[in-house]
């Protein structure tokens, strides 16, 4: 066989393999985008609950979920997140090993394994990434969280809410106002990350400021 013929054959083979891989790759991409799950367990425990589906479908702008897992538990989180993403492609997720990305976790307010930082519309909520209900609750909080407007009544003998009274009351007022106005922000994240499930803010206990000791 001449060299030119051998070259032609090898080129042709390379082309055939490339075309085959591209075609199969495209088919797989199409399959991934139109993926559907048939949950055959008796309790349908591998499917998203109707409530979660409803919440996830309401996400109308990109939402970013960053989950920090303990090494060896990636698969558990990946399965749930993949199902959420199939439900709504606006959900973007990232799975990170907390031990490898401690700085990234700290910057998102995450200090424990198995927590998800949900970023949506300029807000950030940290919740347990499992079970599904906790994550769905976090998504809902991220969607509904709004900056609270705080109104003060005056001229009825209340302590002054503005800066000016004693340093102690000023400190309390400032702290409480910050807590209320940044509902769902860092302070709440710290509270929620220390206990599973929906959490109450620690700000609420110190409100109103003149009742706290």
């Amino acid at each position, binding site marked *: *066989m001449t060299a030119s013929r*051998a070259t032609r*054959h090898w080129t042709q*083979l390379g082309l*055939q*393999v490339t075309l*085959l*891989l591209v075609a*199969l790759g495209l*088919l*797989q991409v199409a*399959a*991934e985008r*139109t*993926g*559907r*799950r*048939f*949950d*055959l*367990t*008796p309790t349908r425990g*591998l499917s998203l609950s109707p409530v979660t589906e409803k919440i996830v479908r309401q996400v109308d702008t990109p939402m970013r979920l960053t989950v920090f897992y303990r*090494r*060896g538990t*990636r*698969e558990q989180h*990946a*399965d749930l997140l993949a199902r959420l993403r199939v439900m709504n492609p606006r959900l973007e997720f*990232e*799975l*990170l*090993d907390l031990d*490898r*990305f401690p700085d990234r976790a700290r910057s998102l307010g995450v200090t424990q394994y198995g927590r998800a930082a949900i970023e949506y519309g300029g807000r950030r909520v940290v919740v347990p990434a499992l079970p599904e209900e906790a994550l769905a609750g976090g998504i809902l909080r991220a969607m509904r969280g709004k900056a609270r407007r705080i109104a003060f009544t005056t001229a009825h003998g209340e302590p002054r809410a503005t800066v000016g009274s004693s340093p102690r009351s000023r400190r309390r007022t400032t702290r409480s106002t910050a807590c209320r106005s940044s509902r769902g922000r860092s302070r709440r994240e710290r509270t929620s990350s220390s206990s599973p499930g929906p959490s109450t803010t620690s700000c609420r206990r110190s409100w109103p400021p003149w009742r706290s000791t």
Partner: protein
Amino acid sequence: MGGMNLPRGLWQYQFLDLQRLLLVLVPLLTMRLFAEERKLGTLELLWTYPVRDAEIIVGKFLACLAVVSAMIAATATYPFLLARLTPVAAGPLVAGYVGLWLLAAAFVACGLFVSALTESQLIAASATYGVLLFFWVITWNEAAVNEVTLHLLVPFSLFDRFYAFAIGAIDTQNVAYLVLFTSAFLAFTILALDTRRWRGLR
């Protein structure tokens, strides 16, 4: 463990064990599909039959898959025995066996391809182990690769693809991956045998 939850506590682990058994057994079955024929010189005789190359390849693939299917079917004895003692949900079993069968088909196609590349059965078996192990453990060492690479590798992992079947769910994308994996290796086998002709090899 899943406690009294049979799908999670028993079948999941049975299917995960069976997949490892397949990983060990299938290369031993596929190693001689073409390698032995070539070594004995009977492959030339096979080419003289009035059938197309693709038909020969598909025939060998189906024959080997039938043997593996019989082995898999024999394991269904356990659920049947258990069902005599306690109610057993059929759904997770169906999902597991569908996944196992698709996985077996993918393994057989891979072994067939490697067997078409060499005359030595030993090389065929060990190379098949190598390829399958690569697709198996591709994501096992999460700490060794960065997140971007891991994200790219996960879709290719046979272990990750099979896991959903083992826990009782059939995901269409996993079915598609295993079917395409099988098709790809069958096509590669056709190309590999074709190259030996124009390269002047047996």
